[in-house]
């Protein structure tokens, strides 16, 4: 009998525990003071709560205090759940929403939707789907709002199914917090990086924001742009870029040129516009608003430069697109003005929002976030590759879990090597709010090899080893070459601001033109695989320097460091013309030499008093006589070209040195290639 009573008491206690307890003084007659205090906190929370999601972070602070006093109020639990769900503690919402539902299933018509959303974010796919379905059943109306809510639940269910699928085949990555030098206890996000990962710029809402102000609309510090550089493989402490980049208002990063010399900035004024700033020496120029082909009265948010700097991809929600915000591209005209924007079309854009556009330094792989494709929740990051032959974008591919998550995944930057990606995310292990993380892509699983043997031949006691052929792995590497280095004066060794021209030798076309930084002399260019590149480094009153890079389509990613010392135009100075090519064993100039020859012609026209000697050299193969003759006739071909280009013959001499004066060993292919060359020397000026 005693046992039965005890059991009844336990049951009773449980029932009492799970009953909704309203915040009325009658329920707390024995504890009036504390009730008053808790009610005060509840009211304070409510005042903030009604102001919208921006204030949830503050509201929940009061709600927690009230909840500590009365943990069994359904509505309070619901509100805490909602605050958590729509601020940074999203997963924590599950605890409160579940309790609210238990205390009062009718606490709010949105409860099942929110719980579904919370489960969804916590990768609890099946439970999420169940909640969304329950929510749909509560939508009995046939009005537009009910229909829209039901459609939204359908989309969430589809996202859960995609997520469930993607989670089963995760992408192999390491995800590392960028560290306390970069991240802070405030929100850090919007990372952009230079192609070689030597410079990182990002947006943060810190208390040292320029002007120190808080935006009342969002109840948070104004955004500023911060910079960190990599030294000895480590990020240096991030510094506020200060004026003129940062002002009292919001500034956020959106794009950085491959060489880290040009910055694209988003400024919230006029509904959101895009600005450009350039690094001149050590100083960033005042951000300049991009023209009306880019900026409209609508919201232009993110943007990025193509690696040659000739295109800008950007996001706008202006009318005429496919729906929501779309990705557009604009090309620079000859006068350096951004041309009319073109929508990238349905291969990329959807009826939902696209955001966070980033083009890889290979110039053809576009990374962007979309809400409209097969996402596992909110925005997911996709990539699509442009086919230069068919002029089409490939079907966008979801980057997969855990790069993508059920939450919004936007603003993703990837290194030129394709090995590292940067993005921001909220994690309990982070330094606070959003932090910047580096993803290291490990590529497809590297299969380990097992070894076995069998007693194949009965007559032999020794087992026979099984032949194992290790499988071939698809190599997914970025196919481009990053060429970088420092340009200096050969004599003073001081950094020089010089022009770097990239020429497609086969098309005789200048693909891109860059400038080295005047205070560091640093330059960086991205050379996608599949071309023969002529590189010319030029500066007035200096002899130009030429380099040749033949990068076949199959070449893997490489980073080449090439420091260039430019020589003055002085008697005796000479340069190797690396982009002059002849037919094999002949002195016929190949058409891909044109650009270099034109450059030489220009130099002679610019300095009409200049007299030069063109000299030809061969490797040590073939006979001395043949080599001497060939080198001389090749030098003469160059002189003949210059004479045809109206350079007076008396300014030009030619000489063939054959295999003499080698600059490299004749024992290797590489050495012989270097020895086969054309040079010019200044005889007088």
């Amino acid at each position: 009998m005693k046992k039965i009573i005890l059991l009844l008491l336990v049951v009773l206690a449980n029932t009492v525990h799970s009953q909704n307890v309203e915040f009325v003084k009658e329920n707390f007659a024995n504890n009036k003071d504390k009730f008053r205090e808790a009610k005060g906190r509840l009211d304070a929370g409510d005042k903030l709560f009604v102001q919208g999601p921006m204030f949830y972070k503050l509201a929940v602070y009061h709600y927690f205090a009230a909840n500590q006093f009365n943990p069994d109020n359904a509505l309070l639990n619901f509100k805490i759940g909602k605050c958590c769900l729509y601020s940074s503690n999203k997963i924590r919402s599950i605890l409160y929403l579940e309790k609210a539902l238990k205390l009062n299933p009718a606490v709010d018509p949105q409860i099942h939707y929110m719980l579904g959303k919370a489960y969804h974010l916590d990768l609890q796919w099946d439970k999420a789907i169940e909640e969304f379905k329950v929510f749909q059943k509560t939508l009995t109306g046939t009005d537009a709002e009910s229909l829209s809510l039901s459609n939204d639940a359908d989309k969430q269910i589809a996202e859960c199914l995609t997520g469930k699928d993607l989670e089963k085949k995760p992408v192999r990555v390491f995800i590392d917090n960028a560290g306390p030098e970069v991240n802070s206890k405030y929100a850090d996000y919007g990372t952009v990086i230079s192609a070689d990962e030597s410079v990182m710029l990002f947006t943060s809402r810190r208390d040292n924001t320029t002007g120190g102000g808080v935006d009342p609309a969002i109840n948070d510090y104004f955004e500023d742009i911060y910079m960190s550089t990599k030294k000895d493989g480590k990020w240096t402490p991030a510094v506020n870029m200060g004026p003129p980049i940062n002002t009292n208002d919001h500034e956020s990063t959106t794009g950085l040129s491959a060489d880290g010399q040009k910055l694209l900035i988003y400024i919230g004024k006029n509904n959101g516009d895009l600005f450009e700033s350039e690094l001149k020496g050590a100083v960033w120029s005042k951000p300049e608003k991009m023209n009306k082909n880019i900026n409209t009265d609508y919201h232009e948010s993110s943007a990025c430069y193509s690696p040659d700097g000739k295109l800008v991809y950007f996001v706008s929600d202006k009318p005429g697109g496919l729906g929501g915000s779309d990705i557009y591209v604009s090309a620079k005209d000859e006068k350096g003005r951004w041309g009319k924007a073109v929508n990238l079309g349905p291969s990329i854009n959807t009826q939902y929002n696209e955001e966070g556009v980033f083009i890889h330094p290979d110039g053809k792989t576009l990374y962007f976030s979309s809400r409209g494709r097969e996402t596992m929740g909110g925005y997911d990051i996709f990539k699509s590759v442009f086919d230069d032959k068919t002029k089409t974008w490939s079907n966008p591919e979801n980057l997969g879990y855990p790069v993508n998550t059920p939450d919004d995944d936007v603003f993703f930057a990837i290194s030129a090597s394709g090995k590292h990606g940067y993005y921001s995310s909220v994690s309990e292990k982070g330094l606070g709010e959003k932090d910047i993380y580096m993803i290291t892509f490990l590529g497809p699983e590297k299969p380990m090899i097992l070894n076995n043997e069998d007693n194949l031949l009965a007559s032999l006691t020794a087992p026979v080893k099984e032949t194992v052929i290790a499988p071939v792995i698809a190599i997914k590497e970025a196919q481009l070459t990053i060429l970088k280095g420092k340009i200096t004066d050969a004599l003073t060794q001081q950094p020089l601001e010089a022009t770097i021209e990239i020429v497609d030798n086969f098309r005789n076309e200048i693909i891109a033109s860059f400038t080295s930084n005047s205070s560091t002399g640093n330059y960086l260019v991205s050379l996608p695989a599949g071309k023969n590149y002529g590189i010319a480094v030029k500066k007035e009153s200096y002899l130009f320097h030429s380099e040749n890079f033949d990068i076949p389509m199959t070449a893997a990613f490489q980073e080449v460091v090439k420091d260039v010392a430019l020589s003055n135009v002085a008697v005796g100075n000479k340069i190797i013309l690396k982009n002059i090519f002849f037919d094999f064993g002949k002195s016929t100039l190949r058409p891909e030499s044109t650009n270099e020859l034109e450059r030489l012609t220009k130099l002679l026209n610019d300095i009409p008093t200049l007299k030069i000697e063109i000299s030809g050299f061969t490797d040590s193969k073939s006979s001395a006589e043949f080599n001497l003759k060939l080198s001389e006739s090749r030098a003469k071909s160059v002189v003949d070209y210059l004479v045809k280009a109206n350079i007076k013959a008396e300014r030009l001499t030619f000489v063939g040195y054959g295999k003499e004066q080698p600059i490299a060993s004749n024992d290797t292919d590489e050495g012989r290639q270097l020895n086969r060359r054309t040079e010019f020397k200044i005889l007088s000026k």
Partner: protein
Amino acid sequence: MKTKKIVLALFCVFALNSINAQTDTIVKAKILDDGSQDAEKFYNSGIANFAAKNFKDALADFDKAIGVKADFEKAYYNRGSTKFEMKDYKGAVADFDKSLSLLQNPDSYFSRGQAKYALDNKTGALADYSKTIELKSDHAQAYYYRGGIKFETADYKGAVDDFTQAIRIKPDYAYAFNDRGSAKRQLEDIDGAIADYTSALKANPAMGFTYNNRASAKRKKNDFKGAISDYTEAISKKENYYVAYNNRGSAKYDAGDYQGALEDFTKAIQLKSDYAFAFNNRATAKFKLKDYKGSADDCTKAIQLNANYGYSYLNRGIAKEMLRDNAGACSDWKKAIELGVESAKNYTGDCN
């Protein structure tokens, strides 16, 4: 004294059936024993010693027999067999040579083939087996062993033909069925292999290694369940069969049972503590179970056992990558390439 000798000779007659030496010689010895056949007496004594595995004494007996009778063909043959047992293969070949110079006996060719094979002279052995077949077309063993050499020199088609001949002559030739199955397996005729292994087991169900071989063929067909079952049978038939434990582990690995695989590899290691394959394979199971440190350690053990174990270097590199030891991973992959593991080249792209 005379009587004793006769008794010994008679004993030899009965004792000889189970050894390699030729039985017909004994019949002669018996018939020709007229008390003056000293050579034959030494010869018979040699046979008795051979049967009793007293090879040294047997050798001395055959020496004496030949000393008395320089053209004693059978004595040369038996001395060759004795030297073979004593692992003096060169001496054996010389005696078989002598025997053959006196008489073109197919068995002499066959035995010389065996001695040449032992001397790793596969071409010579193959020629001798062929000669045996030429002289005695129903010599099943000659076909069988010739098939074995063809197998070993990767002439699997030729091997299948010879094993088929051996089976034709001796339809319950379990070994030949097993080996033909293996040759078919090398020719990627997995179904044919399985059928032959099954026939071999029908002829002799005690052959644990054939269960193992059939299991491996099934594994090749991705019939992991069938493979595991056959490996289990192999283990039950052959005590301490570490090869089958290692293989069953691999089949479990293929089937995604990494814990089961780990246990089998561990068992193989317990049975053979220097079994590099099992250490290497256990590393793969540990990797799948996310025990990257354990995986790298097992590879290290495998490499300690076999310094040229390229695949284990490859695997250790993969484990080290997950341990964030990129330099170590690169160094291992480069070593694997050095040791001929081409696939490691896929991984060294990021290495300095």
